[in-house]
């Protein structure tokens, strides 16, 4: 905007002053009282956010960690039914739940499949997203139509597309098998065979995830200056060399971010697994979050303690992943 209204410039000035002061006071911090007096409006501004975050993230998180250290189930938590008040009778059991989870086979085998699921989904999604982004990053007729079509899976609510896929995959009535049998081939037990079911859930998640990758990478591609390509062409670089030495480094900052986000999302991709196979057949496609949900909502008596334990372990695993990822990037000279 070219013209500052008085109020805007005043706010700007105030912001500058505030920033200047807090920075300019050297290593010693000001007394909190003084800082509160000076910056009370800043605190007042962030207060709603802080309160909301404490309530909707902080409390459940602390409560979840606490429950994971107890033996709480449906039968021993406090509940009030009409006039009856049943007090809580669960006990603190220390790290027993963690010991059980980490020494038992269920957590580790579920983790194994979750890792396979995450790595294959992210890798395939990224590769396809990169291909589509490169295709769409040039001028050709109907480009905007293609872009819109490719964005479509993202625009549809996730559960709607998952249900659509469930109908497509149905072994006897589904469209995919009708096409196959129409072509004289045998139908495929998409969701009834453990291996095919794994393939099926990955395929749906890739379908859902490609648009995001494509849009993010397309943005990255468009920020690479065209002069670089021109210069490389002058020097006689082949298409592959241009891709390898200009496109890839140029996309670096975008791709590191989207890979991290996509990994976290896929690791915890509840709806695709839950709605498509419910973790089945048997427990073949159960990932950590759907299994944690099952402990707390599907089995009876509901095992709140075990569910929270798995929840905390998921949190820890993702934090370790993020920390390692960051360290690797920093080593490669990426400030992030």
């Amino acid at each position, binding site marked *: 905007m070219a013209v500052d209204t008085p109020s805007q410039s005043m706010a700007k000035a105030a912001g500058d002053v505030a920033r200047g002061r807090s920075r300019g006071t050297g290593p010693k911090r000001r007394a909190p009282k003084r800082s509160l007096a000076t910056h009370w409006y800043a605190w007042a501004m962030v207060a709603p956010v802080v309160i909301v975050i404490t309530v909707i993230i902080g409390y459940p998180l602390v409560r979840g960690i606490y429950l994971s250290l107890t033996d709480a189930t449906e039968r021993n938590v406090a509940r009030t039914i009409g006039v009856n008040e049943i007090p809580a009778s669960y006990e603190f059991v220390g790290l027993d739940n963690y010991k059980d989870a980490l020494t038992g086979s269920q957590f580790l085998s579920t983790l194994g499949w979750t890792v396979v699921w995450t790595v294959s989904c992210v890798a395939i999604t990224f590769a396809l997203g990169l291909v589509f982004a490169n295709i769409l990053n040039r001028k050709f007729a109907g480009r905007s139509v293609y872009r819109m079509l490719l964005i479509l899976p993202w625009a549809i609510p996730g559960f709607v597309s998952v249900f659509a896929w469930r109908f497509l995959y149905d072994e006897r009535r589904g469209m995919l098998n009708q096409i196959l049998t129409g072509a004289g081939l045998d139908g495929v037990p998409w969701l009834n065979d453990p291996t095919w079911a794994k393939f099926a859930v990955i395929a749906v998640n890739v379908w859902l995830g490609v648009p995001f990758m494509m849009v993010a990478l397309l943005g990255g591609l468009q920020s690479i200056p065209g002069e670089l390509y021109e210069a490389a062409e002058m020097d006689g670089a082949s298409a592959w060399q241009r891709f390898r030495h200009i496109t890839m480094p140029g996309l670096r900052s975008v791709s590191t971010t989207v890979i991290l986000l996509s990994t976290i999302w896929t690791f915890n991709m509840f709806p695709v697994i839950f709605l498509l196979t419910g973790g089945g057949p048997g427990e073949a496609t159960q990932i950590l979050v759907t299994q944690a949900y099952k402990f707390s909502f*599907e089995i009876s008596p*509901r095992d709140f303690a075990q569910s929270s334990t798995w929840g905390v372990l998921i949190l820890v695993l993702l934090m370790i992943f993020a920390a390692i990822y960051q360290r690797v990037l920093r080593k490669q000279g990426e400030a992030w």
Partner: protein
Amino acid sequence: MRRGIAATALVAALGVTLAACGGSDSGSDGGSKSSGELSGTVTWWDTSTVGSEDKVFKKLAEDFTKKHPKVTVKYVNVPFGEAQNKFKNAAQSGSGAPDVIRSEVAWTPEFADLGYLAPLDGTAALKDQGDFLEQAAASTKYNGKTYAVPQVIDSMGVFYNKKIFKEAGVEVPKNIAELKTVSATIKEKTGKTGLYLRGDDPYWFLSFLYGEGGDLVDAENKTVTFDNEAGVKAFKTVKDLVDSKAAITDATNGWDNMQAAFKDGKVAMMINGPWAVADTYAGKEFADKANLGIAPVPAGSAGQGAPQGGHNLAVYAGSKNLDASYAFAEYMTSAESQATIAQQLSLLPTRQSAYLQKDVAKSEMIGFFKPVVDKAVERPWIPEGGSLFEPVKVEYTKVLTGQTTPEQGAKAVGDAYRKLLKDWK
């Protein structure tokens, strides 16, 4: 990085939060009886099949207001598969729970044990208790008190498509061996599959287990019996039916696929209960109702048996309108109401007097199912009764899809039971 940690924490926190949330909207209006007349709102959660049974139940429930004009009945249909968990969520958080729930027989002791149900002894809900079939009343008792009123009782039988059987020139199979040969003949002569075996719900597996002389548990002797020889044999039987192509099955969406396959005449038989009759008659193969035949479940190597099931009406202990709820539960289980349901939906009454009514006595489905119910295998009415199915469901599907052997599957179920039922053998 900071954003990374925040995002990580947020996503994982949501995972943890799962354990701490629950509840839904809507509750019951407070109501009370002033000078003896009932008023207020009664919310009823029905679990009957949508599209066929629900209309009849809705109309019947709303007719309650004809007797008690000041009471409003709020009919809510909750899918059967979700009702147990939904009710537990609502009952525990204390908000959004219905006043009256149609509780499956195995859920009733569990809800009562958790303290969610109001004891009904001495209330208006129980009238003429001696009239109830003994088997039906058994599931409503817990720790010496009555927690529900029996609404319908059921068992299972083989539903078969008479036309396909005639075309193939076969008779209804009486045991598993015949089931296999009959299916093979049907396949050969008509190209159709013999049996739809429901593979995603262990309830449909019970008759095979009983046929081998097994059971989930022996409640009297506090012993887990699933992992003995009968359980292994039952798993082998169902696996063999699928492997030999005598039966088809699905690991997900079994109910819809089963009904669709049978109604469209793609399979000749299915094992099912009276709750499926109304829906089956809606299929194009059964426009002529006479085409639907029904027979006892095939016997196994050690006998023949089908599970006894049914539904009760239970009153939520936290209901704000207990008196009207009691009266509603009584009304819905009265002999007249049961006769209406029996006539229109072929569901079996729990009152002896209802069977004496002319229209009920004439019904072919009820005439078939009543002796089956009399002989049906009673399930253990223990609070964990509703928890016994989940371990079987996982292993049953694993066995059918070849992820585990019948021996390992039966053993895994037994281990899970011993973890669930402390100090059982």
